[in-house]
């Protein structure tokens, strides 16, 4: 379980995270929902230790973060971080050199799943193709948790559909997935749990199916309620 407890973070004189607490469990897909600027990317980076937090705790399976977690938690940022001069195949080798938990077999499977051409140069990829390649890099690790920052943002319909297919496939089975989005339509039927961000806190954290069966509300209905109060 990834657990945030009362996390606070100030950025440019603003309280971006203001006592944020929530959990993301293994074997389920948790979605952080928030408007632009709600601090979604900051949360992801804070979990990965890429930005410092002022107060609060972030625990992975009950333990404070450390170097060990990079084999266990993989992060798919909202842009590719690989050197642009590399070919995609070279990028895969680069990852294999860095991570013990790299699974070359799964990487090859993912490259086929997304129909990516290993010989192509990373710098020449279209936005949609780059997003798919970015997912290959994150999902090919034998990690127990996968963090994905806006995996659907700004890419074409067919690429989005392909990426959505990942969520109902064995590629994420038994892992814990935490993703962020500001477009719910894409993920309405894919996620188990939603965390709605409001004023740097979790305005509401709920199980989507329970919400539907007990209150007859869709994720968007709940969002409207939270943001209008």
């Amino acid at each position, binding site marked *: 379980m990834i657990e945030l407890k009362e996390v606070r973070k100030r950025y440019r004189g603003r309280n971006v995270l203001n006592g944020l607490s929530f959990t993301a469990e293994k*074997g*389920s*897909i948790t979605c952080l929902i928030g408007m632009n600027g709600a601090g979604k990317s900051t949360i992801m980076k804070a979990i990965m230790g890429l930005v410092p937090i002022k107060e609060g705790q972030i625990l992975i399976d009950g333990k404070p973060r450390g170097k060990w977690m990079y084999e266990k938690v993989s992060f798919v940022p909202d842009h590719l971080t690989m050197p642009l001069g590399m070919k995609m195949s070279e990028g895969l080798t680069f990852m294999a050199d860095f991570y013990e938990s790299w699974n070359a077999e799964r990487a090859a499977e993912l490259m086929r799943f997304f129909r990516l051409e290993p010989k192509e140069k990373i710098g020449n990829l279209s936005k949609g193709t780059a997003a798919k390649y970015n997912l290959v890099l994150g999902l090919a690790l034998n990690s127990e948790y996968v963090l994905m920052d806006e995996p659907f943002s700004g890419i074409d319909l067919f690429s989005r559909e392909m990426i*959505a*297919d990942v*969520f*109902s*496939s*064995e590629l*994420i*089975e038994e892992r814990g997935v935490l993703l962020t989005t500001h477009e719910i339509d894409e993920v*309405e*039927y*894919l*996620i*188990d749990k939603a965390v709605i961000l409001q004023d740097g806190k979790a305005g509401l954290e709920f199980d989507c*199916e329970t919400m*539907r*069966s007990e209150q*007859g*509300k*869709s*994720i*968007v*209905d709940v969002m409207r309620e939270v943001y209008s109060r």
Partner: protein
Amino acid sequence: MRTGGGWEEVEFNSREPVYLQVVRHFKEMIVAGKLGAGQVIPSRRELGTLLKINPNTAQRSYKEMEERKLIVTEGNSPSRITRDDSVLQAIRAELLGEAVDAFVAAVRKVDVPVDELLDLVKSKYIEALSVNPAHADKEGSGERL
């Protein structure tokens, strides 16, 4: 395995539990003759991919259907639609009852004598069948309801 038709067209309602909508879709496919008694159904994982839903939701649908004896899973073999005729007949009665209830609720808004209504239903139903014969291709295939 015939898993061809009938899976892609599912349109979910975002305000109802998805797992129950999946169960309902199975029932509809059974009464429409698209899924026969004893027929092998897709695995949980396949269903998740086919319907583009969360794997846990697919799992929950199967659990619900197993509890209601709609499907049976023996050991490691793939799940199948039940061969229990009483269950299948109950599903048919359930869906038919719901459809008639909805029809009655809608038609109650109009003041109409029951005989006139029945005649109208009869002629419309016959007309609909002649345009698009239900189960015509399944005639004599044995395993239908």
